[in-house]
């Protein structure tokens, strides 16, 4: 198990290097920042000066090496727009986004798996049919629209919950639930089909032939086997949640990374984009690492590979 984790950590480092190259190149492909910073009547000398101060007069690979060296010191450069360290801007927004995405992820699992098990156990019944229909709706309706509808119902009409902003627990409920809807539906569907798949497996029939109770076979053996595809889905889902958070943060005016990233992209504020994307990737990679470890805990075949 130890060497398994070391191997995964090594892969995580390679991924982060890859991400930083892509981010660096993409940010520079989007256009020259100097013209955004300078007034229209700037002289040649002004342009040269600002390019020099930002290091843009150097060859691309030199810029990249400087960038990497600085990143290792936690220095992503200064925000072009705000003239403060990009890292500080991003770090200030991270807790809100982490809170939102992790809450949504947790809700997806805690609601999705039991619903999937219920639907599989009562397959082709009214409850199975209802759960599956709601799941299809949850996956096919755009979540910003669902978010608006929930605000209308719970904040405007019923006035049970605040409509926007970040504060206590009550502020978290609507955005987290809206963001989680897709995950609940996806996890529920995979849990259901994966559990049903187990029913006709030989190992289940062998367990029955040992005279074990249906309850033991379901909760001890089938559920653990059925959870493996769900874990695989969780990795994909996390990336999806962080992407989705950008939109949900806007809908609920949630002060997270999303709005900062949108603003920086529009303003070609490279340092902030780079800091935000790389830190988000690190966060995502760490989460995926913990999913890999969970895989190893559940499935001995992976542990010994």
């Amino acid at each position, binding site marked *: 198990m130890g060497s398994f984790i070391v191997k995964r950590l090594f892969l995580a480092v390679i991924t982060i290097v890859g991400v930083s190259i892509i981010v660096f190149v993409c940010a520079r492909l989007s256009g020259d920042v100097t013209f955004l910073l300078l007034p229209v009547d700037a002289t040649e000398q002004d342009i040269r000066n600002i390019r020099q101060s930002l290091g843009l007069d150097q060859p691309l690979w030199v810029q990249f090496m400087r960038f990497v060296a600085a990143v290792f010191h936690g220095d992503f450069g200064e925000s072009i727009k705000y003239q403060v360290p990009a890292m500080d801007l991003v770090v200030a927004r991270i807790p809100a986004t982490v809170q939102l995405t992790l809450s949504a992820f947790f809700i997806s699992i805690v609601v999705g798996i039991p619903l999937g098990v219920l639907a599989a156990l009562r397959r082709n019944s009214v409850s199975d049919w209802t759960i599956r229909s709601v799941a299809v709706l949850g996956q096919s309706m755009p979540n910003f629209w669902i978010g608006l509808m929930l605000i209308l119902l719970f904040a405007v009409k019923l006035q049970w919950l605040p409509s926007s902003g970040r504060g206590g627990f009550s502020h978290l409920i609507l955005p987290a639930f809206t963001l989680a809807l897709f995950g609940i539906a996806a996890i529920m569907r995979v849990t259901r089909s994966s559990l049903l798949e187990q029913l006709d497996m030989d190992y289940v029939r*062998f367990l029955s032939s*040992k005279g*074990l109770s249906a309850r033991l076979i379901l909760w001890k053996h089938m559920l653990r086997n059925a959870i493996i595809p769900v874990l695989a889905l969780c990795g994909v889902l996390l990336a999806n949640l962080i992407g989705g958070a950008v939109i949900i943060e806007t809908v609920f005016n949630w002060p997270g990374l999303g709005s900062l990233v949108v603003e920086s992209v529009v303003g070609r504020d490279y340092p902030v984009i780079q800091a935000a994307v790389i830190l988000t990737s690190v966060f995502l990679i760490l989460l995926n690492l913990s999913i890999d470890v969970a895989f190893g805990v559940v499935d001995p075949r992976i542990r010994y590979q």
Partner: protein
Amino acid sequence: MNMIDSQAKRTTTVSQDPPAFLHVDNLRTEITSRRSGRVVRAVNGVSFRLERGRILGIVGESGCGKSMTAYSIIRLLPRSARTVGGCIELEGVDLLALREGEMAKLRGTRIAMIFQDPMMTLDPLFTIGDQLSEPLRKHKGLSGGPLRERMLELLRQFSISSPETRLRQYPHELSGGMLQRVVGAIALAADPELVIADEPTTALDPTVQAQYLDLLDSLKKSRDLSLIIVTHDFGVAARLCDDILVMYAGRAVEKAPVEAAFDTPLHPYTQALLKLVNLSDTDGGDHFVTIEGSPPDLSEPIEGCPFAPRCPHKMPICADEDPPEFAVGSGAASCWLYSEAAT
């Protein structure tokens, strides 16, 4: 209505015979295709008896209903299949009449099952020790030290090397032959009297196959087990079985003691099968020989004898009437060739 009447008549005639250890009578199991909704009569009126301490081999081509017969007995059919008629009596208790909870109590303790592919039979996520302990905890009430002792003893009985290590290992760490021994040890942990083995050696290497058959044979003797071996391999049947049941198109076409079945096969289908085995043995199995024609579609009603279209001894009556079972010597065959012999 007619069918129910004739079934009732059969059951009464049968109950006059001395009670057998296992008595399967007029068993009928159907598979409903989930897509087309077509009903396949996979087992169509199979009857046989098995005495304590005997080994019965059910042989036939794939799709003849031999596995479905086996699963019907322990009532572990796939979801798409259902037993629709007949009776299965284990020492006078009709298994088909039991509620699921009562049936579950017999599994493991009286009837056990060994499956074809040992890699698929065990739960990949739990250790051998865990899976072996389950029936011992449940049926024998063992735990702690005595449980461990019993598990090691069982593994040794099945000639499994270094049993202490095996208990901690996962299924994927063992070879196929070793796993099938583990499966055997688990199946027999709670001392069942009847073991049903569905192609138990098909997934194993030839050398390992022979060892496994010897193991089953010695266990049968030491534990006074009754076994039903489902196989398409006449070699396996000849080596291990006391009696042979040949199935074709969901029916039992021939029943005989093993020597008679191989020396003087009665049914033309058995004769054709044995000829194939001998042919492929003599020419080294260089080319593939088959019986001309193909088995009938079991979702369509069959007129007359199901083997008639492929039979070299076909008579006019064969196409019209399904032959009943005729007793011939030590065996029996469902074939019109023996209708005079029977009268």
